[in-house]
């Protein structure tokens, strides 16, 4: 069933984060729970040789891109078994050989970098594309507008994906950004802009596939806005700024519940198979935790390695 993969990937992210949140040593993290459909829907449109870049909210994108959960967790917790040997952490998780060029924890900071990777692809005559995920917070930054302009001018193979979770830390999107829809930002540059319900993995996937096809064909960049909700505060160290009723209402929009209900209604899923998929996710996550717990922290004598 084609939807099984989408459900499995979203369950993996949710389960991974639930276990991570429960640990005392989780450190400073930004979670993707509630926003799984954005990463999973987008990654369904990417091919192995494409590259994905994202913000510091990297757990969802990395797992959706197919990075091994044990390697991701090791990186998040600073263990040497992470792909960056535990040096990058959540903010700078990267495994380019797996099509995950990496996170960058400066808001909007990865946009011009992604355009540069797209320029490299274009100048090498490759047919691969680059996708960059960023939050609504990045839409007020000059970097986005500089990137849109040049990417349009040079027809770069760049799929920009705004994961609009409607808050930059505590500032609501309505208080921070003037446009009606964030995809409207693409229009002045002649770039196709589409807004979809980011809690509906099918809507994200269909839009991402269609835009990725355009980008791959050489038509230049595209802009996809996915309107989503985050289930947790901005980060593990940020206070929840939203009223309790709002957070409770947000949790009614769960993308996993929505897809599984659709699959049950269409006869493609029943409760016992869903439970089996959940157990499978639990098992993958506990293997990842055991792998990470068995690994060590870097030797401090290597602190100067790879500096220059």
């Amino acid at each position: 069933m084609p939807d099984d993969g989408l459900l499995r990937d979203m369950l993996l992210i949710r389960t991974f984060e639930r276990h991570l949140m429960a640990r005392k040593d989780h450190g400073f993290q930004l979670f993707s729970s509630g926003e799984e459909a954005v990463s999973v829907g987008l990654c369904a449109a990417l091919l192995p040789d494409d590259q994905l870049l994202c913000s510091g909210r990297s757990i969802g994108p990395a797992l959706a891109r197919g990075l091994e959960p044990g390697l991701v967790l090791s990186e998040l917790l600073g263990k040497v078994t992470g792909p960056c040997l535990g040096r990058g952490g959540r903010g700078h998780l990267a495994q380019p050989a797996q099509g995950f060029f990496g996170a960058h924890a400066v808001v909007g900071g990865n946009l011009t970098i992604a355009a540069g990777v797209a320029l490299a692809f274009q100048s090498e005559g490759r047919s691969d594309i680059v996708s960059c995920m960023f939050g609504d917070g990045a839409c007020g930054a000059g970097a986005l507008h500089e990137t849109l302009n040049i990417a349009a001018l040079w027809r770069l193979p760049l799929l920009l994906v705004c994961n609009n979770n409607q808050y930059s830390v505590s500032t609501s999107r309505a208080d921070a950004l003037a446009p009606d829809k964030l995809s409207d930002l693409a229009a002045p540059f002649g770039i196709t802009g589409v807004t979809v319900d980011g809690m509906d993995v099918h809507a994200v996937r269909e839009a991402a596939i269609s835009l990725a096809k355009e980008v791959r064909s050489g038509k230049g960049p595209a802009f996809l806005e996915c309107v989503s909700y985050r289930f947790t505060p901005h980060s593990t160290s940020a206070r929840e700024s939203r009223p309790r009723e709002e957070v409770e209402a947000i949790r009614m929009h769960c993308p996993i519940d929505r897809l599984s209900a659709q699959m049950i209604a269409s006869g493609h899923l029943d409760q016992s198979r869903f439970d089996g998929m959940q157990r499978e996710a639990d098992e993958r996550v506990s293997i990842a935790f055991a792998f990470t717990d068995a690994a060590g922290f870097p030797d401090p004598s290597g602190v100067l390695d790879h500096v220059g």
Partner: protein
Amino acid sequence: MQHNPRMLLLGQDIGAFGGSYREFEGLYDMYGADRVRDMPVAEAAMVGMGVGAAAAGVRSLVSITYMDFLILALDPLVNYAAKLRYKTAGQLHAPIVVKTTAGAKGQGVAHSQCIESWLMSVPGLKVVAPSNAADAYGLLKSALREEGPVLYIDHKRLFPTAGYVPHTENFIPFGAAHHVRQGEHVSLVSYSYMMSPTLQAADQLEALGITCDVIDLRSLAPLDIGTICTSVRKTRALVTIEEGQLTCGVGAEIAFRVREQVNDIRVRRIGALAAPVSSNPVLEAASIPDADQIVAAVKTMINEEIS
């Protein structure tokens, strides 16, 4: 660009125009618009895209017309490029050269600054600043073979100066200062355009019987402290000359590091006054060092020793 057919040149006015200081003249005709790319006035995107391309395997050189404008592009250079190799444990690196111009030449408070000392403290970033044509060639050759980001600083007043450039490929290694002149009484340490007043001062001082050991740093990060220490062990007197600010400046760093290794020496720093550099010719000249100021500082230092 001949050796590496994928390398890109990015920046403002670098195409058919040839660069604001004609420093890229001819390259557009030789390599075409795909490889010599004019960009809109968007410094963060110029450097960010150059860094992204470099990290994806396409070496790039980005021109930022004035060093003052590099401030707009420090995020991709400092937060991304300089840290990329470290943060990914060597999975990625950014072979990019950012070429810019520093120094005063009548263009005012936001077109004259020398902010290289801000950037000497960024781990993973190399900083070089030639003082003559041969070094400009040899340092650029080396910069384009580096695996990480390099900030390459031209000085506006040096563009019209003539100089010998070898016909053969000549690589000047980073972190190797040039011992330009031998002397006994004082070590003068400078770089970039300030080498010119420094050498003039050395001539004037020699006429007074004071001989100078003169060192051209060429590379600010890494810094060749060893060559300076060798000189200062001989002269026991150090004067640093820079066009930028003295506070947290190049001279402050050199003076402290030399003193960590060599005891009982006299040190003076010469640099710009703590004021913006105006386009007004009188105020500009008043704010930056010249040969007379260097001569006066050395004479004072020598006289203090005698008295």
